[in-house]
């Protein structure tokens, strides 16, 4: 592969992830990232994260619900030519900015099937200061696997940062936060508790 791999997340996926974390402020939450690897005419490669499925907000390290979720998610998105390309995690505590071993484990699992996998950690401090500034960058930190197979924080050595496809995504996000839109978001935990709740969130952005 020539050139540095770029990482881009679509607005809808980005907003879903943040709203999910805001709905469950007192818990750790996670999500899977769906998308595909795209090669443009100039030969550069971009990992496009087009959608996200919020997973759990309680006991997130347990395997059975995770396995059920991944089977169904892969099946659904596979039919749309998208795959699981990464994992999102938000820590329980506000001042915890470390990538937990849980996140690394799940990241490892995804990496086994998709070597360009991205692991994204919610940046609580950036999220808190979002209303105060005009920052267009995502309130998240990107981690990718380096040559020694460790999860490395992107951007620390000039490598590709995560960008949002739509430049005004943070404006839209702030709007949703103000209207408490997070109440409408459904994750896989909610689905397992009441299967009439749809983890695809089809009505969320209508």
């Amino acid at each position, binding site marked *: 592969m020539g050139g540095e791999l770029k990482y881009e997340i679509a607005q809808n996926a980005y907003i879903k992830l943040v709203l999910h974390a805001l709905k469950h402020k*007192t818990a*750790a939450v996670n999500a899977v990232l769906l998308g595909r690897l795209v090669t443009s005419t100039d030969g550069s490669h971009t990992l496009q994260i087009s959608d996200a499925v919020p997973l759990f907000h*309680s*006991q*997130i*390290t*347990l*395997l*059975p*619900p995770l*396995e*059920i979720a991944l*089977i*169904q998610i892969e*099946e*659904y998105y596979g039919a749309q030519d998208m795959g699981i390309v990464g994992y999102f995690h938000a820590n*329980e*505590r506000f*001042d*915890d900015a470390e990538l937990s*071993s*849980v996140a690394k*484990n799940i990241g490892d699992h995804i990496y086994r099937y998709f070597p360009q996998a991205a692991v994204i950690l919610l940046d609580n401090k950036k999220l808190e200061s979002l209303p105060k500034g005009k920052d267009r960058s995502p309130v998240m930190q990107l981690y990718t696997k380096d040559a020694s197979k460790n999860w490395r924080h992107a951007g620390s050595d000039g490598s590709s940062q995560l960008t949002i496809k739509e430049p005004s995504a943070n404006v839209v996000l702030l709007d949703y936060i103000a209207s408490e839109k997070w109440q409408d978001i459904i994750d896989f935990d909610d*689905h*397992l*508790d*009441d*299967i*009439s709740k*749809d983890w695809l969130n089809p009505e969320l952005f209508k």
Partner: protein
Amino acid sequence: MVTKTEETELNRLEIQVDNGGGGAWEYLCLVRKLKVRRSDKVLKHGLSILNDPKKRSNLGPEEWTLYEQVAVAAMDCQCLDVAKDCIKVLQKRFPESKRVGRLEGMLLESKGSWAEAEKAYSSLLEENPFDQVVLKRRVAMAKAQGNMSGAIEWLNKYLETFMADHDAWRELAEIYVSLQMYKQAAYCYEELILSQPTLPLYHLAYAEVLYTLGGLENLQTAKKYYASTIDLTGGKNTRALFGICLCTSAIGQLTKGRNKEEKESPELHSLAATALEKIYKQRAPTKLPLLNSALKGLKI
């Protein structure tokens, strides 16, 4: 822990109060009774009562309970000025009170003044070493600072004395799960099942931890506890039904090539699969094709 009926009633009241239909005091009492964490609503509606002198006097002696409830909710929402005001009122009314002393400790906690909070709690414990609330605050402080091993140590010490505190066992189990210490989490759930054997939540949690631990014996036991969950919930628990299918599939993988006697009978699996199909057809028909291919993948 809250039952579905209790939660529905609570949500109904919450929507009613939110939309100006009254019932704020009822709602606040229910939140207190069920011990749920709805701090932003408690703060909003509690303050509306406290800031209205007429409503406040109507409460009579319950006024002080409300001040306490609103103080805690305010701290949870980081509205420390509101919390401080509520606590001041309570200090004036109940000088030298231990109960107010606890709130002062919590206020120090919410400011992040850990050392001072620890001092406050230690002195409260000197007078009453068995103050459960303060002992639990110590655990909470450790957890809030990210000191998980400290939290575990304090919580285990607490449980040596108060071994009937189910909430504490659950908290410990959840801490262990978050740290991927599944064996220890399993032990906690075993204690819970022993003391409350008819609560399906514990059977389910135990099964999920055992499955995560893995290994043939754990999978077989997990399957048993998924089955008992289904029994205790009248077959309505989706997680348990999925659990049976996952267990059967995983056990099948591990016992491939072994004698026929050691193989599991597929009846439980097909019963669970059928039940899942029925439930999905009824309540999530758009997901039925996904369910079917998932189940196909799990067939032994």
